[in-house]
């Protein structure tokens, strides 16, 4: 039961801070000018966070994951499609695990 409350707290907390990020720009930054350095920092955050998730999952897990990561990357670069990249990554991981195990 306490896990249910924790999940609810996490989700509502996520919603609250996300709304704050949405209103903050309109409330504060319409008056204050954003410095270029701060602007560059904000722009770089999503990519850097996602890279931090990907790097250990692909490079520090095993050969199947490394191959799957390569397949997903190649597919994403050539097709720019999220679902296709997932199919390629998952497919290669499945094959590599069955063959290498």
């Amino acid at each position, binding site marked *: 039961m306490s*896990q249910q409350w*924790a*999940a609810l707290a*996490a*989700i*509502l*907390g*996520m*919603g609250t*801070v*996300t709304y*704050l*990020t*949405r*209103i*903050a*720009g*309109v409330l504060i*930054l*319409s008056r204050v000018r*954003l410095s270029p*350095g*701060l602007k560059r920092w*904000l*722009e*770089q*955050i*999503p*990519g*850097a*966070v*996602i*890279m*931090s*998730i*990907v*790097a*250990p*999952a*692909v*490079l*520090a897990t095993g050969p*199947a*994951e490394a191959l*799957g*990561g390569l397949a*997903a990357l190649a*597919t*994403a670069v050539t097709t720019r499609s*999220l*679902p296709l*990249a*997932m199919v*390629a*990554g*998952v*497919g290669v*991981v*499945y094959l590599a*695990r069955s063959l290498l195990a």
Partner: protein
Amino acid sequence: MTSWRWRLAREAAWLAVVRAWPVALGVASYGVVFGILARQTGLSGAQSLLMSAAVFAGSSQFVALELWGMPLPVFTIVVTTLVVNLRHVLMGAALAPHLEGMPRGGRWLAVFFVADENWALTMAALAQRPRAGAEFAAGYLVGGGLLFYLSWLASTWAGLACGGMVRDPAAWGLDFAFTAAFIALLVLFWRGRGDLLPWLVAAVVALMASRLIPGKWYILLGGLAGSLAGAFSPREPDHGEKRS
């Protein structure tokens, strides 16, 4: 002070819906993936739908699933969500001048729909209409936003329905679906060589932190290190220019 002209706002909202629906289909494909992965992570259907309804920001929701575990790291999830979504501050700041003159309550409501795709479409529409007033800006933002919001909820729900059908995801390599989705997101985020250094720093710091520190702190540490490296690195003076 002129009165708020609803007709203009409604017309703008309709324009936005016409322009945005193909993009909404693309967003829906992410929503389906989110629903599948949420089910796989162990969230209930109600929890997943509530997250999509309350947060309405795709990449942060994917990251939250990655952090989800027992016992639930509530603080880490909320702080990481805040950091991932800080980019909205920038979007809101760009939008702010266009909402001048709008009633305050309406402004508080309209900014809820600041999301990557909807914001970009709204800014593009505003760039084409330099003389458009706040009615147009808000109507466009909310019209497109409602469409994206509904498709995000409906597709989350569809993904939940699909995700329940697989018993043992790892046996099919489906546990890798997350990582593959993030790789594709990275490719879509890539804006040029300026991203190389911050991403490299993020990868190295995350790899080291994941070895040394228990839990999922490596995501936040790598993300902060990489983005700060990007902010402080010297930028090429010819940034944005094409070399022949």
